[in-house]
């Protein structure tokens, strides 16, 4: 099982903030494909400019492997202050 978290506009697009995906996809690209089957708009937005990915709370780049139980967060451009 993989835990997926969305923030900002990504929640609005998906209609959820957090889900569990099982059986666990092996890589980030597998997870993206799996999400695209049910939420094509979300999958499109996840590929948009400035969307960062954090695995287990560390920002990563590229097609990382996912350990079972991993937490994957998709973060659109940040705008505090």
């Amino acid at each position, binding site marked *: 099982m993989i835990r997926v978290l969305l923030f900002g506009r990504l929640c*609005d697009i998906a209609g959820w903030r957090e889900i569990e995906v099982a059986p666990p996809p092996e890589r980030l690209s597998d997870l993206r494909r799996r999400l695209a089957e049910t939420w094509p708009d979300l999958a499109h937005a996840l590929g948009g400019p*400035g969307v960062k990915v954090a695995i287990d*709370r560390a920002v990563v780049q590229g097609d990382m492997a996912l350990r079972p139980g991993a937490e994957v967060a998709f973060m*659109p*451009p*940040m*705008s*505090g*202050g």
Partner: protein
Amino acid sequence: MINLTDQPFDPGEALTRFAAGRLESGAVASFLGLARGEAGQATALELEAWPELTTSEISRLVDEACRRFSLHDAAVIHRTGKIAPGEPIVLVLTAAGHRREAFDACDFLMDYLKSRAPLWKKEFGPSGARWVEPTERDLADAERWRQ
């Protein structure tokens, strides 16, 4: 001191407490961000955080500012949740021996909070809601500090 709060806060109380008893910090700079009404076009803001991460990320930024600008101290208070026009969103406080370091550190922290802290801002108005993303200027401002 980092404080992420979903309750309104009094910026002045924080400034007075931050400045009290500093016998060697000649300089305290602060920046207070307020929610703008945009002449009725913004009826509220909503700030979303990732509580487990936002505080620790801001804390990391504050530590970096302390090292980089030789600060004596720094603090950030950041609102989350619904915020009405005119209410404080963020307060950054920096204390240093001299004013240049205090100013620069405050400026640096705001630029980073605007574009690199895990916070997402939604603006509500008469014609609906929209997510705010960093402007070109925000991104350019943050680039100034790249070493």
